[in-house]
């Protein structure tokens, strides 16, 4: 199976491996991580667990979905053979080619087709090979999927629709294999947008997304697909959408992020706590739309400071939404201007990726600016 995987994989494995490590923040650093030790009460801890990485967890979630719902289908470009990132590996063999199949290269077609299936009450789990290729499908997602229920006065809906797509920097992906398009979709009422940070989270959030009665986009951090393993429950479990998770409690500044950026924030926090002698709170939003305002607001009311970070460009990035909500809700408790540490307002660069991404040093500077104001 692995041979097949490399065969259709268009993402150079080298780029993969190196950045997965970099994104996980373990590149050369000996700082102890804390994120992986955090227990999520929505993840069952008592049953059987299997060590797996993020792509295997996605695979496991789809396996459960196909097994428990006979209307469920999984499809996308090269998906029958596992897809370029191996997420649908072995599912065609197990569930047959009527339920797990490869589509032509046609993102708008894939999305529209999935919407049609979902409108009939089926469960459609579509893969867009890279988030950068979701734009040809933008119209179907934003105009058709998001508004089906509203415009039919509730007669029809596409709740069975889930679109998965790998997003984010990987080292050398360049302009069209690195983007983070979540903010575009966050502007669309009717959609849900989810971004998991780890194997456990990926399985539980994806199962929730698949079973949620609304169309959901799941952006998976491709840099983490083959990064660290973690024990993942074998059983069927769901992590609720729209709920953030506090990964570390702290008293001086609230640091907010999601997806692969969580590990950059973790590293920056470890630096800041050591060098500035402060205490940071880390929040993983997990859901971008709808997002958990209460958790963030409660935290900032406590700390008085906020740093928000994502890989996507700063202008109109999701941090802008978080920042403005904090400003509205926490105005009298704010000790310093809210910091946004994001990608620069440039196309995703090929040769300047290290300069572009909001790395731990930039996040550290953001935390410092929030503290030293």
């Amino acid at each position, binding site marked *: 199976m692995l041979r097949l995987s490399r065969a259709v994989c268009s993402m*150079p494995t*080298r*780029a993969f491996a190196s950045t997965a490590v970099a994104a996980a923040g373990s590149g050369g650093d000996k700082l102890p991580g804390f994120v992986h030790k955090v227990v999520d009460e929505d993840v069952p801890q008592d049953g059987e667990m299997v060590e797996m990485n993020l792509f295997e967890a996605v695979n496991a979630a789809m396996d459960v979905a196909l097994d428990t719902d006979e209307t469920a289908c999984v499809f996308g470009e090269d998906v029958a053979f596992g897809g370029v990132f191996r997420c649908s590996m072995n599912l065609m063999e197990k569930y047959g080619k009527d339920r797990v199949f490869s589509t*032509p*290269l046609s993102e708008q077609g894939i999305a529209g087709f999935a919407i049609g299936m979902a409108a009939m009450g089926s469960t459609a789990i579509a893969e867009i090979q890279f988030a950068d290729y979701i734009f040809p499908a933008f119209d179907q997602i934003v105009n058709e999927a998001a508004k089906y229920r509203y415009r039919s006065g509730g007669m029809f809906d596409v709740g069975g629709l889930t679109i998965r797509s790998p997003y984010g920097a990987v*080292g050398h992906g360049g*302009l069209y294999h690195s983007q983070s398009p979540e903010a575009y979709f966050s502007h669309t009422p009717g959609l849900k947008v989810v971004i998991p940070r780890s194997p456990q989270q990926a399985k539980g959030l994806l199962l929730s997304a698949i079973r949620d009665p609304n169309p959901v986009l799941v952006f998976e951090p491709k840099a983490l697909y083959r990064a660290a393993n973690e024990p993942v429950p074998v059983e069927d479990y769901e992590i609720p959408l729209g709920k953030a998770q506090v990964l570390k409690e702290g008293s001086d500044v609230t640091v907010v992020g999601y997806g692969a950026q969580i590990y950059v924030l973790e590293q920056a926090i470890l630096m800041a706590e050591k060098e500035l002698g402060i205490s940071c709170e880390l929040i993983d939003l997990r859901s971008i739309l709808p997002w958990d305002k209460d958790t963030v607001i409660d935290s900032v009311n406590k700390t008085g400071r906020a740093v928000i970070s994502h890989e996507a460009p700063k202008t109109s990035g999701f941090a802008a939404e978080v920042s403005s909500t904090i400003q509205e809700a926490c105005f009298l408790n704010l000790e310093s201007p809210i910091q946004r540490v994001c990608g620069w307002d440039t196309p995703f660069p090929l*040769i300047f990726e290290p300069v572009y991404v909001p790395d731990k040093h930039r996040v550290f500077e953001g935390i410092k600016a929030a503290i030293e104001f």
Partner: protein
Amino acid sequence: MFALARASASAAVAAPAAARAAVRCISDAALAQELTFPITPFKCHLTDGPQVEEMTTTGAELLEFFKLAVHYRRLELVAESAYKQQLIRGFCHLHIGQEAIPIGMEAAISKADSVITAYRCHTLLKARGASDVEILAELLGREAGCSRGKGGSMHMYGPEFYGGNGIVGAQIPIGAGLALAHKHANAKAADDAKRIAVALCGDGAVPQGQVHEAFNMAALWKLPVIFCVEDNQFGMGTSVSRSNANTEFYTIGHGVIPGVQVDAMDPLAVKAAFQWARQATIDNGPTILQLKTYRYRGHSMSDPGTSYRTRDEVKEVQKSRDVIEGIRARVIDAGIADAAELKAIEKDIRKTVEAALEEAKASSELPASELITDIYVDKESQKGFVRGVSLDKSWVL
């Protein structure tokens, strides 16, 4: 196929052995001789197509084709090894096996015509006239690259070469747009100054909706554009018949666009097709060429290209239809040059391309300040402009 075709040389075939013995002393007579070769019959849709069953060429042209084919392949082989040495990072899609397309196309169209393609673009740009250094330096992400290192393997540009596109299918409507501009200019141009656009995509790109949207617009407005499907049998790991309900791509033009299927492993057939198509598109609007070819390597460098097809299938194409071997046989058969002379030519080309790689390696990387250039240009100063969160946080460079 054509490798086996015998030349029916109209001039004396056998040059004196003595004249051919000295390397690179290929005689003027050998170069001047006219040669005629049969070509694989075209399949035509809504047109009679190029009414030719054979192509007449000269010893000089054939030898030139040989040099070009060897050069294009060497360029990609050098890129391949540079990639394996980790000099090239990220993506790299090679055109190895498909060399007859840039050769035959450029032999038929004008340098003033416009070309646009997808990410498998290196040799198409080379054929447009870029230097080896510009291409290799781009692959290495260096300043001497055709896009100054900012585009990389998938985003190469040059005179009348509009890329180099990463989003599969997106280049096709853009190609139709290029053709609209040509149509307007052509209305005022002399016959020999009329220009066209060539928009190429792969077999895997045909299912993209925007390809068909472009077909309709081009047909509606009779745009001078040749739509080419480089039908190399695969889109990543998916074979052509698993992604397309109709694999006869020369017939996909909405029942109105004429199309021709071409044996695109033979540069003479490709040339004949483009000569016909160029005039047809100036006279009547869009045409479609299905260029039947074969991708020797995997989709990109991370794909060994062996799990969705057999090694024997690849070997069989290399043995029976290879572009270089086909021309080599014709050149030798016609007595234009002998095997040793051709080997010497190949050696020279190899040296040239390898020297170009060294030159590319010596080129510097752009400074990090270039991250923020080439995004916007300020209207008044024409200087670079970078949008900030607010106006006072924006920069004019």
